[in-house]
């Protein structure tokens, strides 16, 4: 007997490559990674991407206890543990650090910086009010609120400037150096951090999980009592999604594999059948994953799930091969099978792979991953069947088990039911009525948030953090760009005026902009003009006030001299270098090779239309709604893929017309087309919205449906065996996809449901159609 050297070489190659890939493989769960990048200015787009990535890495913790002291200690220990873990960067739980640096920065530029309020007073020539406030500060406890002493900051301009810099984080208030919120008898301390790796990387999630566990321990130990730790940010949702999906892929994959192998064992009564089937499957999966790794560097979870549903498809080739023995059980030899099944298998695999190849053309990283993992997986599984099975399968055939023969007869009976024209018309009418009903209730969904993978408990925690802080993390922000740094700052200042007006109308809760701490040079010049004209001249406000209090002339002259020496404007470079800019530094995107940009973050947007309108009014300002943009992209591709589906039907119909002539071509296309329409209708009836991912499922349905119909048509002379092959194939595919419908991830569940219902219908319609071929022959 000839050794299957080709097959052995193939298996060895796949095993070697996969053993190299396996330890390097990273599984990604970020839905955004599935999608193409938004179009527009590439530099700005890249900067937005960077900022959005940072935003997605932010994690907010609230460390709470009934005892404020315990909460403070626990938060310090918690933050310390996160810091040393290496899994988190920029861990922040004390806010005062920038203040001392802020005092120095202000004093060095005191002739160009003013709080908005003081600037307005001087603009309105209300120097008298400034003097009165300064008098009150000198003589009452109002002065105790000032972080700079009276001699260095006689009128309190510096104190006002510094107080202006302290950001409002919703309800959070400074207690000592920590930001805290109090609610229901508990004090919560705010701890902010950024993940050191991508929150969507499975490998990083494990690291973060360990770091969080030890930080929780440290917090409990420091408090000496249980502390409540609330978490908000993408990390926990992504971690949950990875865990759940991995568990489900593992569980469903195992159930499907075991069931399929058990079916093969029962049917072919030979241990080699499931063993060889398993071999082909494993080789296909390993090859698909390896190819994806080499092409993309990572493997997306959704692609992996999609790939796992391949089990049902890839096992088909093994089934077709083995089922061939029932054609002539007594005389069958494995080598005979090739002569009979090669053409249908190649034709079917070719159609499926063509369907996937179409996806490779789309600019969708996620879809291309799905396509590649499927094409390579199927090709290798197919090759295993051709190269290994003939030499390794048992040398003789066995007859069809009687239970199976009865099942096939029953199926043929179902197909025969529709032989009369009247029955056909009745069924057609029912189908049309159902389709009409379903189509009328059809619902489309492209909202990314609806597709996010999370649980009510985690979403509840997210909402509780937002409630306690009084502000939700907004994924929408404004991007300000311009030809120079100062142009950006000037545009920001114009924008800030409009945003304050919007705030006053209740359209917006808060916003944060760099220009609050770093005014444009233009505005700093205006401020300097005001200070020179009204404050630091010999009869200005400072000398007047200081003389009134009783300072001697030398001290007053020194103060004026110091202010005059501090007249150089504050520059972005100097600001960025000072610890005073820590809190706002991230918002300054800086020089993007010829263009400058900054981000203005928003809190609590109540009037989205008004914010969007602002972006149109002020040049250089763009409203960035990444989730909204992605939803729009999803909608766009949902429509595109639907059109592609139509095109694919046209192409396949043309191929069938050329091969089988008009009459049979229409019958062959009827199975996938009818199944697709009925599946869409069924989804409408079940109120499952049509998403891009459902449409992709429909594309797969076309490939499988054509495969079934053609296989039955090609093998029309041996109808029973072909019927068995196709039925086995449909049952196994329905099984592996049907399990996906039970996924707790809506995205995966919708793909599973579409495929399970669709393939069931495809199979049924192909049987009915095949009944007609039989009738004709």
């Amino acid at each position, binding site marked *: 007997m000839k050794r299957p050297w080709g097959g052995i070489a193939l298996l060895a190659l796949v095993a070697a490559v996969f053993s190299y890939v396996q330890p390097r493989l990273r599984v990604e769960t970020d839905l955004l990674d599935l999608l193409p990048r938004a179009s527009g200015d590439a530099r700005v787009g890249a900067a937005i991407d960077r900022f959005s990535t940072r935003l997605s890495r932010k994690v907010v913790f609230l460390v709470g206890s009934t005892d404020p002291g315990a909460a403070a200690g626990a938060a310090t220990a918690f933050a310390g543990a996160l810091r040393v873990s290496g899994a988190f960067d920029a861990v922040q739980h004390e806010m*005062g650090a920038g203040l001392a640096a802020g005092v120095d920065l202000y004093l060095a530029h005191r002739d160009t910086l003013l709080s908005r309020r003081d600037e307005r007073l001087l603009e309105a020539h209300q120097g008298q009010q400034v003097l009165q406030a300064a008098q009150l500060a000198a003589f009452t406890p109002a002065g105790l609120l*000032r972080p700079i002493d009276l001699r260095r900051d006689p009128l309190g301009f510096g104190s006002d400037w510094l107080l202006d810099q302290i950001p409002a984080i919703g309800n959070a208030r400074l207690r000592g150096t920590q930001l805290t919120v109090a609610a229901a008898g508990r004090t919560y301390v705010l701890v902010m951090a950024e993940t050191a790796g991508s929150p969507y990387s499975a490998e990083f999630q494990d690291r973060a999980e360990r770091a969080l566990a030890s930080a929780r321990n440290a917090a409990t130990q420091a408090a000496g009592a249980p502390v409540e730790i609330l978490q908000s940010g993408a990390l926990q949702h992504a971690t949950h999604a990875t865990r759940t999906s991995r568990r489900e892929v593992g569980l469903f994959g195992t159930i499907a594999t075991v069931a399929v192998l058990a079916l093969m064992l029962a049917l072919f009564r030979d241990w080699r059948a499931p063993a060889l089937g398993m071999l082909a499957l494993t080789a296909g999966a390993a090859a698909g994953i390896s190819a994806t790794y080499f092409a993309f560097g990572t493997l997306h979870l959704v692609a992996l799930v999609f790939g796992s549903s391949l089990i049902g498809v890839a096992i088909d080739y093994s089934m077709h091969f083995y089922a061939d023995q029932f054609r002539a059980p007594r005389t069958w030899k494995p080598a005979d099978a090739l002569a009979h099944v090669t053409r249908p298998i190649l034709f079917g695999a070719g159609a499926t792979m063509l369907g996937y190849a179409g996806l490779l053309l789309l600019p969708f990283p996620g879809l291309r991953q799905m396509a590649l993992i499927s094409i390579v997986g199927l090709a290798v599984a197919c090759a295993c069947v051709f190269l290994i099975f003939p030499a390794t399968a048992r040398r003789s055939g066995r007859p069809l088990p009687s239970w199976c023969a009865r099942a096939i007869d029953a199926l043929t009976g179902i197909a025969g039911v529709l032989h009369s024209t009247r029955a056909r018309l009745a069924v057609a009418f029912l189908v049309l009525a159902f389709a009409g009903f379903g189509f009328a209730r059809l619902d489309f969904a492209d909202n990314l948030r609806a597709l996010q993978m999370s649980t009510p408990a985690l979403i509840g925690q997210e909402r509780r953090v937002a409630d306690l802080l009084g502000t939700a993390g907004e994924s929408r922000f404004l991007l300000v760009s311009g030809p120079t740094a100062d142009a950006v700052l000037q545009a920001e200042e114009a924008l800030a005026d409009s945003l304050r007006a919007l705030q006053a109308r209740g359209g917006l809760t808060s916003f944060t902009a760099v220009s609050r701490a770093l005014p444009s040079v233009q505005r700093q010049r205006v401020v300097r003009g005001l200070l020179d004209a009204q404050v630091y001249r010999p009869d200005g406000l400072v000398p007047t006030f200081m003389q009134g209090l009783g300072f001697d002339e030398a001290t007053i002259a020194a103060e004026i001299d110091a202010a005059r020496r501090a007249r150089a404007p504050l520059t972005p470079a100097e600001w960025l270098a000072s610890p005073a800019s820590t809190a706002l530094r991230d918002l300054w995107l800086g020089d993007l090779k010829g263009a400058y940009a900054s981000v203005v973050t928003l809190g609590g947007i109540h009037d989205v239309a008004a914010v969007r309108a602002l972006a149109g009014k002020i040049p250089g300002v763009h409203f960035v709604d990444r989730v909204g943009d992605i939803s729009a992209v999803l909608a766009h591709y949902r429509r595109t893929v639907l059109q592609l589906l139509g095109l694919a039907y046209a192409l396949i119909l043309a191929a069938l017309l050329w091969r089988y002539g008009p009459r049979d071509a229409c019958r062959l296309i009827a199975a996938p087309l009818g199944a697709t329409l009925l599946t869409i209708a069924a989804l409408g009836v079940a109120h499952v919205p049509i998403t891009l991912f459902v449409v992709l499922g429909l594309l797969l349905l076309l490939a499988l449906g054509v495969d079934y119909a053609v296989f039955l048509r090609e093998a029309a002379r041996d109808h029973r065996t072909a019927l068995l092959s196709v039925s086995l194939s449909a049952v196994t595919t329905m099984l592996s996809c049907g399990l996906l419908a039970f996924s707790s991830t809506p995205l995966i569940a919708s793909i599973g449901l579409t495929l399970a219902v669709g393939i069931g219908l495809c199979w049924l319609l192909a049987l009915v159609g095949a009944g007609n071929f039989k009738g004709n022959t």
Partner: protein
Amino acid sequence: MSRARKRGAVVLAVLLGVLVAAPAPAEGLFDRPLKPRQLVDTVLADVAATFSTTQVLNGKFVQRRQISGLPRPLTSSGDFLLARGEGILWRTSTPFTSEFVLSPRGMTLRSGGTEQRVTEAEQPALRTALEMLFAMFSMDLDRLDANFELHGRSLGARWEIGLRPRTGGLSQAFSEAIVSGSKQVDRIVLTGAAGDRTEIEFSDVVARSAPLDAAEAEPFRR
């Protein structure tokens, strides 16, 4: 033994006695930080209950502020009203009449017929400042503990609480505070980082557990 020598011995003994009996004022108070609970149990044992039930506190004050570079302190006097949940009303009668209201909604300054307001939305830090001042005047130890290292000691019928800001934060406005009193807080001394010193003395202080009536609350509402 001669009378003279005997008298000399008595004088010496009295002097020694005085030296031993009178503790050095600044020494000792800041020796070791204490927890609020410890202060309530020891130094403030007699008055802690009154402090915690006080809703409204009013009285007269004299504030003396010594600023480096100024030959004489800046002195003002007037009356004050503290109401839990409402804020602080501070009225000076000398050297000029003015009104300073700090409430959770913001700060209002009235003097010479004009009024200036800074809302909490404009300066979120105001609320923190109010909470801190209020805690100091009303001896809210838990709140003070969040911002300051606490110290304390008894001096006969009187007590002294020392406050040192924990690192950073707004409390940088002064480096050390001593709040002292007997039945009520009657003296606050703040030492600033640049050598400034503010001393506020209270007199005729009345504490009550009943909230403000409508007329009293009026300045906070305006």
